Structure formats: structure tokens, C-alpha cells
């Protein structure tokens, strides 16, 4: 068991999300930076879908009631184990009764803490993820909560430091035009890739809200609600795009001007309020061939 002494700002249990239920209005949820999440699980030798903790800006204080391997990845953060610094991006052994304190992130927005075996809260609709939009799944971490540790292992803990890219201060995200780019003026489509977009403080796991020039529509038509994918740049009537992350709603009534390439979504998930994001268009073929 892991006992939560302090929950941090917003710490949730996340895995790869709830899939196959979007037609019933159930969002996927799951880790928003799946690259950092996946690395944390690999480091401790977990199966790729094992649940880990997603930490937002200010980390938790946790007492490990039994000895276990852990790994911390994602945005840079100082952590200590009974006062001794804990390195990131490698498996670290924690002995029974030790207290792990995760501080405030210095770069990025989210860090991931995997424990060997995974967090074993009961799955809801096939996932252990906390859905912060639809309130499905386990509650966010609260003081005094106890989290069971499971047996979702696939190998041994990894005995080296994993190479991790630095957080880019002004990331450029690749995107494919459409499906509703024809709703917008040519100037709006150009502005999307010409301007820098500032991440606003109302961003969350549902989406990154962006400030910049208003993207004008060519027509004043009312769009009928339709299905949404992760990475969609949905543009409400105020003209300011919202970049949908893993906990996006399944349908939406505003047009999507472009969709960000999946490999670039971790950059968006780590963008703090005030970060300037840029976009560039790639072809569908280039997007499918894209690598991180």
C-alpha cells in the first residue's frame, strides 16, 4: 500500500484510458503525456498499461508501506526519499516505511510516478484512470488515501538512466489540416501556422486553451455536433482554439481547423500557462510516418 500524506496540487491515477465507449459519451481519459507515462512504466518493468500517478505542478508526499521500485519521469522536479535526493528517469528502490516527497516542477507541467506492479485501484469500464471531465474512475488523490500496488509487471526494473529530451521552451507542433478547415477563411488557416499561441491558465487535462488572433469563419453556419479526436484544434465562436488532450469530450459542436500529430501531443501536455506554441502543417502521409 501507498499512503498519501499530501496529495499535491492535482495528482491522479492514470493508465492508457477507457477505449471503445466513445459512442456512449464516455471520454478516454488516461495519461495526457503518454511518452513520459510509458517511460516510467518501462523503467520499473511494468506492463505498458499499468496505472501510474500523474502529478501536476506540485507533487505529493507518499509513504511506501512496503519496499518497491519507483520511477519518476516527465517535467523536471526535485524529489527526495527521507531527505535524500531521488534522480529522475531511472528506477529507484524504496524501502518499507520510507517517505517520498515530490516537490514543485521546474520545467513542464506534469510528472509521472510509476511503482513496480502498478497502482491497483479497481478498474472502472476497463481502466483505472481518473476522468477529470466526466468524473468516472477513482477520485483524485486526497490526504490519508491508501493506494494498493498490483502485479502488472512484464520484466525486471531497468538498470540505467533513460535519455530524456529537454522541455522545449517554444515547441513547434505538427498538424494535419481539417476536418473542418473549409469553415475558416484562408487568413485564419494561415494565421494558425504563422502566429505563436500562448497557453492560458484555464488549460487542463481536457484541453490546452490558446490565446492569439481570433480565427475567423468564412461562413456563419451552425455546425452539427460531431465526434472529436485527441489532438483536435477546436475553434469556439470567440476564435481561440482549444487543443484537445486525452480527457477531451467525445463530441463537440465547434469546427476543428486541424489535428495535431499524436507524437507531438506530449509537447502540448507539458506546456505551462504562458508557453508559446507554434504549429506547422504536414501532409497526412508525413503525419503517419512521423516519429517523436
Amino acid at each position, binding site marked *: 500500500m501507498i499512503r498519501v500524506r499530501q496529495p499535491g496540487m492535482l495528482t491522479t491515477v492514470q493508465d492508457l484510458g477507457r*477505449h*471503445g*465507449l*466513445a*459512442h*456512449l*459519451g*464516455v*471520454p478516454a481519459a488516461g495519461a495526457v503525456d503518454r511518452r513520459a507515462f510509458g517511460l516510467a512504466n518501462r523503467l520499473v518493468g511494468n506492463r505498458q498499461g499499468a496505472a501510474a500517478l500523474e502529478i501536476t505542478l506540485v507533487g505529493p508526499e507518499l509513504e511506501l508501506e512496503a519496499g518497491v521500485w519507483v520511477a519518476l519521469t516527465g517535467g523536471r522536479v526535485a524529489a527526495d526519499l527521507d531527505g535524500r535526493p531521488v534522480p529522475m528517469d531511472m528506477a529507484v528502490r524504496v524501502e518499507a516505511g520510507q517517505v517520498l516527497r515530490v516537490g514543485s516542477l521546474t520545467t513542464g507541467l506534469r510528472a509521472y510516478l510509476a511503482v513496480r506492479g502498478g497502482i491497483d485501484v479497481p478498474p*472502472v*469500464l476497463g481502466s483505472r484512470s481518473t476522468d477529470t471531465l*466526466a*468524473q*468516472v474512475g477513482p477520485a483524485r488523490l486526497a490526504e490519508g488515501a491508501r493506494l494498493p500496488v498490483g502485479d502488472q509487471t512484464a520484466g525486471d526494473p531497468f538498470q540505467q538512466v533513460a535519455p530524456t529530451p529537454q522541455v522545449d521552451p517554444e515547441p513547434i507542433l505538427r498538424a*494535419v489540416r*481539417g*476536418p*473542418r478547415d473549409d469553415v475558416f477563411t484562408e487568413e485564419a488557416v494561415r494565421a494558425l501556422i504563422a502566429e505563436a499561441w500562448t497557453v492560458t491558465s484555464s488549460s487542463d487535462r481536457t484541453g490546452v486553451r490558446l490565446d492569439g488572433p481570433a480565427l475567423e469563419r468564412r461562413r456563419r453556419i451552425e455546425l*452539427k*455536433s*460531431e*465526434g*472529436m*479526436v485527441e*489532438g*483536435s484544434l477546436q475553434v469556439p465562436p470567440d476564435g481561440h482554439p482549444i487543443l484537445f488532450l486525452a480527457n477531451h*469530450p*467525445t*463530441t*463537440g459542436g465547434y469546427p*476543428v481547423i486541424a*489535428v*495535431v*500529430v*499524436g507524437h507531438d501531443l506530449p509537447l502540448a501536455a507539458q506546456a505551462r500557462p504562458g508557453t508559446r506554441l507554434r504549429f506547422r502543417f504536414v501532409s*497526412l502521409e508525413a*503525419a*503517419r510516418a*512521423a516519429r517523436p
Partner: protein
Amino acid sequence: MNLRPAGERALLVEVEELETVHRLHAALRRLDLPWVTELVPGYRTLLVVADPERAGALDQLAADLPGLKLPPARAGAGVPVEIPVSYDGEDLPEVASLTGLDADEVVRRHTAPTYTVAFLGFSPGFPYLVGLDPSLEVPRRDTPRTSIPAGSVGLAGDQTGIYPTASPGGWQLIGHTDVALFDPGRDPPALLGPGGRLRFTVAS
């Protein structure tokens, strides 16, 4: 049929009618393609989402779609689900005055049609229904409520619906039901699926 890529791993299939959306949804469910992770109906669209590792399969599907044989309309709709409603909503007097009908007549006209679930969205299990009597079309409330209890039945524009879970919302509330529209412990978790039908009845 109009095909619009939605990023590298999804295809938005746009058709003329809601009924075609449901027939297409049924046809693709029947094909049970292992690389398809989600099929999401909207009013005029079906979103097909692929496993990111196998997104190239969308191209073949796009080529095959125009020739795909669709099942007849409402083939899988089944009998309409009955939703007993206590018509005691806070906004019922307001709806009566907006429509120029008395409250009993609002109830009569709300319980008369068989509605079709166009799709689900907004929140888990929230059904967007079509089939509302046009005389019951009323605007949304000027100020949305910050919290609406689960089971509330409301009206907004040409739509009527039920809130499966407590949430904020701007619809005019005419009643409530005790029927659970969404229960994560049930399989399937939503009482109604896209293309399903329902009738409202007066709860006794």
C-alpha cells in the same frame, strides 16, 4: 458521402441524413474491424478512429465505404425504452407560458412521440434526442444552472434530453426520472445507444 481526414488516425464520414449515420454505424460494427478503436456517431457524421499503429488501414476503408452494403433503417433499434417522468420541473410553468400551452398540454405533447437517440455526448450516457414536437421548442435559459440533478428532463431549442449525471446546464427543466441512464457497473453502461428509441411516460 464526404470523407474528411481528422488527423493521421481518424476519418470523419459525412452523410446526408441521421438515419444513414446509424446504418453506417451498424454496418461498421458488424464488420468488427480489429484496428478500429472507436466509432462515434454525430448528427450527420460517423467518426472512425484507428489504432495509431494501423492507421494506414483507414485508406482501404475509405476506398471501400461507398460500396459498403448498409443494413435497413432501424434494423437494430428494437422496442422503444420507456422512461417514466415526474413532470414537476422547476421550469414547467415557464415552458407553458413560452409555448402558450397549459402544463398538462406540454406533458401530453412531450409524451406523445417516439424519440430517436441521435448520438450520445456532452457527458457519459447523455442522449441527444430527435423527434420533439416543434410546438415545444423553447430557448435555453439565459443563465445556465451551476448544478442540475441527475435524471433531470429538459428542453432546449429543438432538443429534449435527460441529464444522466449531475452537471451544470442551461436547459429548461420540465421533470425528472429515477431511471439510471448511465451506470459504470452495468454492461453496457449506458441505457440507450445511438439509433435507439425511447418514449417518455407519466410516472405513476
